[in-house]
């Protein structure tokens, strides 16, 4: 347990509810305010599971360990409570909600953060939304489209970053946000994330990725390698470079069951 950490994961084991096998098999991770961590690892290593467990996805069951966020026991909280506490997850596969516009959705989400007796100022909201859409190179008409309904892959990912930039989390979990993006879209997304980091130097980011590519644009403080449900190596950005050159073969040998 690290007192200074915004997110403190200790000995975390988790599985898909009602299945027999743990996917996370003892994860330890501390992220301090303002830090950007990247987690890399091969398919099935548990990277996305870690993000979903932190965000509170109901399909997963924690079997051991703890997760604290700003000193609070996160595992006791509902997904909406975690969001209100300052956690945001950019989904790997964003969900379409037909008939609900992005603007309506974000207005409802911001209003939910206020008390019952406090009314969201709609002009301020509109201004914020338009400014954020410009930052992400999105057409203003985008706000009236139903959430992710008929969006291209790139539009979905951009929409995730738009939501993140409006909700201004203390901890952003980015679950393979870079996958499926061409280099131009990747740069726009990275620019959005970096702008948010500049605005709020205390914002922490946990970036889950397969590829080193995005780390050229969003520079991490710490890079972790996850393998078979555990973090097996941590270091600076050089770890990502080495992985890119060598692949996961050595972990495969070292952690063979």
């Amino acid at each position, binding site marked *: 347990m690290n007192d200074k950490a915004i997110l403190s994961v200790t000995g975390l084991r988790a599985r898909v509810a009602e299945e027999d096998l743990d996917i996370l098999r003892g994860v330890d991770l501390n992220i301090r305010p303002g830090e950007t961590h990247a987690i890399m690892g091969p398919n099935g290593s548990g990277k996305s599971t870690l993000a979903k467990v932190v*965000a*509170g*996805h*109901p*399909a997963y069951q924690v079997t051991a360990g703890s997760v604290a966020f700003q000193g609070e026991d996160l595992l006791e909280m*509902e*997904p*909406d409570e*975690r*969001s*209100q506490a300052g956690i*945001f*997850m950019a*989904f790997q596969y*964003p*969900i379409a*909600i*037909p*008939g*609900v516009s992005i603007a*309506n*959705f*974000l207005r*409802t*989400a911001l209003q*939910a*953060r206020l008390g019952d007796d406090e009314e969201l100022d709609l002009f301020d909201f509109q201004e914020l939304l338009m400014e954020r859409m410009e930052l992400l190179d999105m057409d203003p008409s985008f706000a009236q489209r*139903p959430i992710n309904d008929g969006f291209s892959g790139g539009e979905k990912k951009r929409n995730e970053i738009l*939501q993140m930039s409006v*909700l201004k989390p203390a901890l952003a979990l980015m679950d393979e946000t870079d996958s499926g993006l061409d280099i131009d879209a990747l740069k726009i997304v990275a620019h959005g994330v970096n702008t948010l980091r500049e605005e709020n130097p205390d914002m922490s980011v946990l970036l889950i990725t397969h590829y080193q590519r995005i780390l050229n644009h969003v520079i991490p403080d710490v890079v972790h390698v996850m393998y078979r449900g555990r973090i097996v190596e941590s270091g600076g950005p050089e770890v990502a470079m080495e992985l890119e050159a060598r692949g996961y073969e050595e972990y495969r040998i070292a952690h063979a069951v």
Partner: protein
Amino acid sequence: MNRLAAARRRAREAGAEEQGQIEGASPERATKNVARSSESTRVPEPDWLKSRRDAALELYRSMPLPSTRSEEWRYTDLARMLRLDDLVPSAGAQPGPASSNGDGTVPEPLRRAMAQDRDSAGRVIDIDGSAVSVELQDSLAAQGVVLSSLREAVRGGDPLLESLLATMAVPASDGKFAAMNAALWTDGVFLKIPRNVQLERPIRLSRWVSHPGTATFTRILIVAEDHSRVSFVDEILSPDFEAVTLVNTAVELFSHAGAQIQYVSLQRMGKGGFYLANQRTLAKRDSTLDTLNVALGGSVGRVDLNARLLGPGANSDMLGLYFGDHDQHFDFNTSQDHVAPNAHSDLLYKGALDDSARGVFRGVIRVHEGAQRTDAYQTNRNLLLSERAAATSLPNLEIEADDVRCSHGATVGQLDAESLFYLMSRGLDREQAERLVVLGFLGEVLDKLPMGGVVEKVTKAIEVKLGHVR
């Protein structure tokens, strides 16, 4: 074969098939019961009406209660849900206007619903099957618009009544409940819009039923002459009832060349309400006859809607929206009859069902011989919010012309955990998340609702239901 003969044949076949099969209900006795008391309070009526009622009563008696063995009633088990025996006729037994309060005042819930209506060109208030108040803007009356209670209209002797009431649109031969209504109706609305008169604001019918265990029979007859335009909102409310309380409504809509009618039904009865409606729309050349059925209340709601496209260029948009919870049961039986060529009809019914609510949609597009260049569409979509809720969707096509564009589609989907998690991960609580998903799902229909407070009313009612769901 003409329609009437076909209906008689159907009735005979059904009767032959089901003889001796009806348990519990004794329609015979109920008819006598209902008929006797309605006769005793009936004001003197013209001969044509008396004989029409008598013939309808004969037909009613000859038809058995539809059973689940007939295709059209397969999923709504009347023998279990409705005991005609136990019903007492409404209105007929209640002397004077505004019988519910006895002092001529409008019940509070109805008053509140009326206060939400933003603009009206006219309004009829109907309490327990009696029109107790009729108001119409003077300027419209001066232009020849007729808005009247059906009883008054009969007394006034407009020849349209003799030719159109329970003849072409909802005749007694249509079925047991159409016959029941044609025999026993106590009141209703007659609305006539003269040629070229276009109403900017809707005419409203505000209905209330106050007594448990009663049966109420109401008819609505609307005639829009050439190139006229009218929108009519028919809203019904009631308190919760301990006993099954029947409302049987016949709606007959005629749009002449180039005219436009929009009919909206807002069914917001309380628990125990059994709402039955037979709606027929007859659209002539280049006319538009749109309907919208909103079912939110009552324990059972059954709407039979038949849209007939009778002239080239006729158009019917048919919208439906339902949201059931607890053990509510909604059954929609629709047909789009393309008799004339070059006509267009588009049906969209969407419903959300929670708890152990049940939704049934059965629709058919019939393109008659010679109805070339028909454009007809039919879509029914259901969203289940609970494991116990169920929806049955049976779209159908019967096409006897070769140059047509028709399509139909039906879906039944679940409220999925991924959608809820996605919304909750942005800080919405479960209730807010469900609300967004349901309103989003129904939004496709809500977006097409007419102005004048209908959208707000329906949205509010849905939100109230979502609020107490869990």
